């Protein structure tokens, strides 16, 4: 079983979504994953640098891939959809075009950064625990089954599409989150827009359009009777959690939907405490759900 990863938390989990980084580290320990820090990693540039400065985006990501290689790690573990696509797309381009790789490496070497030879895979935590040995391990560590809890999976976009760069599962009928929810003893709730966009990339530049996108999954998950939603992406989390109030006013629906990070869901089932998983850092209070989960313990 693969147990050692170069760990790339990305910006949000290092900053405003700190609870994701903390929960991931705690969960990784339970799962027996050793997360090797990448000293001096930077932002992957998100979709923004990718669009605005495609050449610079390639260099930023090549540098991160090269840093992992320098650590003698063959796999980077990501915990964000956008980081996953950005790193995988750069990796794909650099690996298929020797001339490009040489040009990028020349620049990296010129500034004294780690160069990249093409030997690193980029995998999201979701994929590592949804199948194979990671999944078996997950079933072992899920010692506190979340019985009677109904969880709506929300995949977000850039863990599914474009499938030629991600390709872990059928982008129209994904099942990885459902498998994990079930392994945690909870009940997955199905609803049509679980594979759609949360609107986050444009929530500042086009708030009305973004809210229009955000309302749909919240409304459907709530109508389907979910106690909470879970997402593998900190951007989706921020959108679903922090913008939920605005979406509620816009839609005139009284949303009350706790949003879990994937690592928090697994952590709760693995017996980690409310405080260890930092549920208090959510904008939408999780009490209704966490009271149920931690019924036998005090918070």
């Amino acid at each position, binding site marked *: 079983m693969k147990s050692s990863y170069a760990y790339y938390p990305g910006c949000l989990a290092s*900053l405003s979504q700190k609870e994701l980084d903390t929960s991931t580290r705690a969960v990784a320990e339970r799962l027996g994953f050793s997360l090797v820090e990448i000293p001096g990693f930077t932002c992957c540039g998100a979709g923004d640098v990718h669009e605005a400065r495609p050449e610079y985006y390639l260099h930023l990501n090549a540098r991160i891939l090269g840093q992992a290689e320098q650590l003698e790690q063959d796999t980077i573990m990501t915990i964000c959809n956008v980081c996953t696509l950005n790193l995988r797309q750069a990796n794909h381009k650099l690996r298929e075009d020797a001339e490009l790789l040489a040009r990028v490496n020349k620049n990296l070497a010129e500034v004294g950064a780690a160069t990249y030879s093409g030997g690193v895979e980029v995998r999201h935590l979701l994929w590592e625990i949804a199948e194979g040995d990671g999944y078996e391990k997950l079933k072992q560590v899920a010692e506190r089954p979340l019985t009677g809890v109904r969880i709506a999976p929300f995949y977000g976009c850039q863990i599914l599409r474009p499938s030629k760069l991600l390709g872990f599962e059928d982008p129209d009928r994904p099942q990885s989150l459902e498998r994990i929810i079930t392994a945690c003893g909870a009940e997955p709730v199905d609803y049509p827009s679980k594979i759609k966009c949360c609107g986050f990339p444009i929530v500042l530049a086009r708030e*009305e359009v973004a809210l229009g996108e955000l309302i749909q999954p919240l409304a459907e998950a709530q109508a389907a009777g979910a106690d909470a939603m879970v997402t593998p992406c900190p951007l989706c989390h921020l959108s679903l959690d922090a913008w939920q109030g605005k979406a509620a006013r816009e839609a005139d629906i009284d949303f009350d939907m706790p949003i879990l990070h994937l690592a928090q869901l697994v952590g709760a089932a693995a017996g980690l405490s409310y405080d260890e998983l930092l549920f208090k850092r959510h904008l939408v209070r999780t009490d209704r759900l966490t009271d149920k989960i931690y019924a036998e313990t005090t918070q």
Partner: protein
Amino acid sequence: MQVTLKIERYNPESDESRQETFSVDVVEEATLLDVLDVIKDEVDGSLTYRKSCRMAVCGSCGMRMDGAAVLACKTPMRPVVEAGEVPVISPMGNLPVLKDLVVDMEPFWEKFRAIKPYLDDGGEEPPVKEWRVQQAELDRVMTEALCIQCGCCVSECNSMEADPDFLGPAALAKAARFVGDARDRGRMKRLQMANGAHGVWDCTRCYFCNERCPKGVDPRDAIAKIGGEIYAEGMLSDKGARHAQVFDFSSHATGYLLETALVPYTDPMKALDVKFALKMVRAGKAPNPLRPHRANKLGEVRALSKLVKEQEKESLADKRTGVTVDRENES
């Protein structure tokens, strides 16, 4: 083999919608279009759908199978039958339904016309008898040139669902095809148009367009190409471009996204939303702007950004000129 379909029917005369199940025998090689043809010929002549070339070139037979836009003529049914599935066939999304599986393409064409999908030579005479395009120049726009205007990308565009005026993936991919054309002299006008209220910055990067396109056009990537050129030209009037600028700047200023700069710089008015800001602060989600998180080895990325910026300038000069080969010496 026997194929069973649930087809969404719509009768405009009575304004009635219903789902109808059809089962027919077809050859093993049958596509979805072949199945519809058999149903129309043998079961119900009133079933309405568009078709023409039957070979994924004309772009007429776009429709949804289980919610995903496909070209009916390019969709083999054997795997569906073998999986024991009874798919729901419905019209494409984001376009008004006229009858059964036929949508009104007029809003699609209207956006297409808006981007002026034809060569703007700026009145310039070609250096030889005609504008000769070199292979490298063609390669630059070849992906976008593959578009057959079927509408599959538009069908599931998440931004268009929320903003029906969004120019959308098909029209913007076509715009990219002309922005990148070595012969075109309308580049700046095209960039200004794409930089408008319902242009490239409306795209939420859901990547449904790339996923659905039956021809590999990758419309989202085309939208990003235009966004990149708008940014390179320093056109920062739109909130979307300024949003990108914060990511660009922070990646080498601190190495991490400067979250506290993102809102005030993208949209200063939003920074006045004190109630929302306080909620973020209370949840611990607002980092201290005076003590930003800094990456180690920051000198590397600063030097890298600067170095690549110089190279980007050279490439921008090429794009402004359009033609990248020496025409003078052509015969």
